[in-house]
């Protein structure tokens, strides 16, 4: 439930897995994650199991992007899905490395 994360590559790649609703309630977890992350690490955010995402979640993704600097922030989500709609409506695919996967 919520957010889980793991690191690889001596902490340089952080995998974040978001399930169910992705919104402002995840702020605290995200902040901790960002504080713990090294500058210039890369992120892979797996939203394939998320069901809902709002604009404050987009804001959290922007924080990740800033932390990553010029490094990769990859978003994974199911296409078509509610998440994919939000990502494409906001045109965030231009900011993130987006990997749309087909539903199982």
């Amino acid at each position, binding site marked *: 439930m919520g957010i889980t994360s793991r690191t690889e590559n001596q902490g340089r790649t952080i995998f974040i897995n978001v399930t169910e609703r992705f919104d402002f309630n995840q702020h605290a977890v995200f902040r901790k994650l960002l504080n713990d992350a090294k500058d210039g690490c890369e992120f892979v955010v797996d939203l394939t199991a998320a069901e809902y995402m709002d604009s404050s979640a987009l804001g959290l993704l922007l924080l990740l992007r800033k932390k990553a600097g010029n490094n990769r922030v990859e978003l994974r989500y199911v296409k078509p899905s509610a998440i994919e709609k939000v990502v494409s409506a906001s*045109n965030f695919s231009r900011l993130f490395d987006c990997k749309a996967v087909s539903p199982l």
Partner: protein
Amino acid sequence: MSDQCNTDGSLNLVFKPVSRRLALVVDDEPINCVIMQSILEKMGFETAIAHDGYEAIEAFELLAPDFVFMDVIMPHMDGREAARCIKSMTSGRFTPIVFLTALDDPEEVHACIEAGGDDYLSKPVDPRLLRTRIYSLERIRSLYQKLSRQHDELLFKIAEEQENEALANRVFLHAVSAHNEPISGLDSYSRPASCFSGDLVLSCRLGQGGIRVMLGDFTGHGLAAAIGALPTSELFHAMTRQGRSIPELLTELNHKLCRILPDDRFMAAVLIDIDPVKGEFCYWSGGMPPFVYKSKDQLIYHSSSGLPLGILENYDFVSEVGSGRLTDIERILLMSDGLLDVRNQEGATFSSCGFKDLMDSWASNDGFFSALDERLDQHCQNRLPDDDVTLVSIDLEKALAVLNVSSDQSADLSPEPEGWEWALASGGGYLLDHSEVITALTDTKYLQDWPAEQAERLQTLFGELYNNAIEHGLFGLDSSLKSTPDGFHLYYEKRQALFDDPPPGQIRIQMTFLPRQQGGCLRLVVQDPGKGYDLTRLSELEQHDDPSRFWGRGMQLVRSLADNLIIHPPGNRVEAELRW
């Protein structure tokens, strides 16, 4: 006071005299009172005594004790009744009532607890058991106090939040909304998720007679959203008044929002310019749902292609601005994503449950906003939406019925660099008087270098053609009515009534001026929505030159004033030329 029960080490720490002030002992047997007093005082309590329920209530009111030890069976008022009263007096704080019962009867214990007792002890009271009960109840009380304190803090926070929202609302109303010019035909609908909505509607007339409308959607609500709304509104109005283009405005807005908003905040927005002179609209949209326009009987959805504002510092807006022709477009609808995402109790979004029907009602322009309100009520069932719902509907005919002045050196119509073209559409519920049109034209200073007699000639000529267009083309009045003095009066009464509440339709006026080395040439075109003149009848009339007749003089005057006059069949478009 000293704690004398420190033989039991585990309870020693909790028995601090500071939290133990006054115990009320209620018993009709004086000997029992004395025993309890002695035990409690050893534990650090001060004590007070009451002998029946009435005295207990009185003492409770007067002394506000921290504990009550209550006998059950007493004269006048028994312990259970007294406990009920005391509990009803102590909302907001926790004062434990411990019943002291002679019987260990489960029924009686049940009745005591039901009456509001927090615990019970059998008589004779065992001091060790009493101590344990007090310890346990004090623990509950401290938990209760903590909860109650947190509850108060929460209430305070909520009040503070409400105050913040009210402040945001005030800021929004005075500093943001107040700057919006009223534009007829522009209606907006808003159902905020909180007091200040993160949604923002800005509108302004463009220098050249068109309009600019923006719908923004900030992440967040309340003050956090209002922070960005203020500079956004200021920039929007200032730059629009300066005649700055969409990309110029967006670049500034984006720059400003990047600097002032926290990294995780931004503003999705759709911005649209409507330019009736060029007959086109320009738009940019970032992170918003599609905007919709109605063209003929089709609804056309324009998806958003840009990123929201306040994210990327260097952003090329020029390449993202789109445009389209206004021909055949009746109405344009902008919306924030709140509408599509409103959920009902089952969690289904509005976009999946009623959006299409709603758009059909918008297309037929049939009480759209009240229909929207009803549908949302039905959908939400009194719940507030998660996000703000905002829509802006622009009725182009109404919105553009007011002056559309162009100083463009429009390439196809006035190739001379010094020339000008001036166009206007009047009508659609907002009909202008001919003097208002002339005033507007003279205000532009276009005529300031003209010889006075030429300016007067234009005014007269224009007045005739424009009034003809209104009276015959738009109102359908019959001039022959003016053949008697009473009829003349009736004609103008009718005209006045129709002027105040004009029928639909527009009168289009276009003036193109080409300066010559000396003097110049002005072409005036007036077009009305009517069926046209009966051209043969008109020429017949002009043969019979009776200066005393009440009607039919207008066209004659026009002919005499104009250097060239063309009436385009069927007669609803007249072109006149002035040269000097």
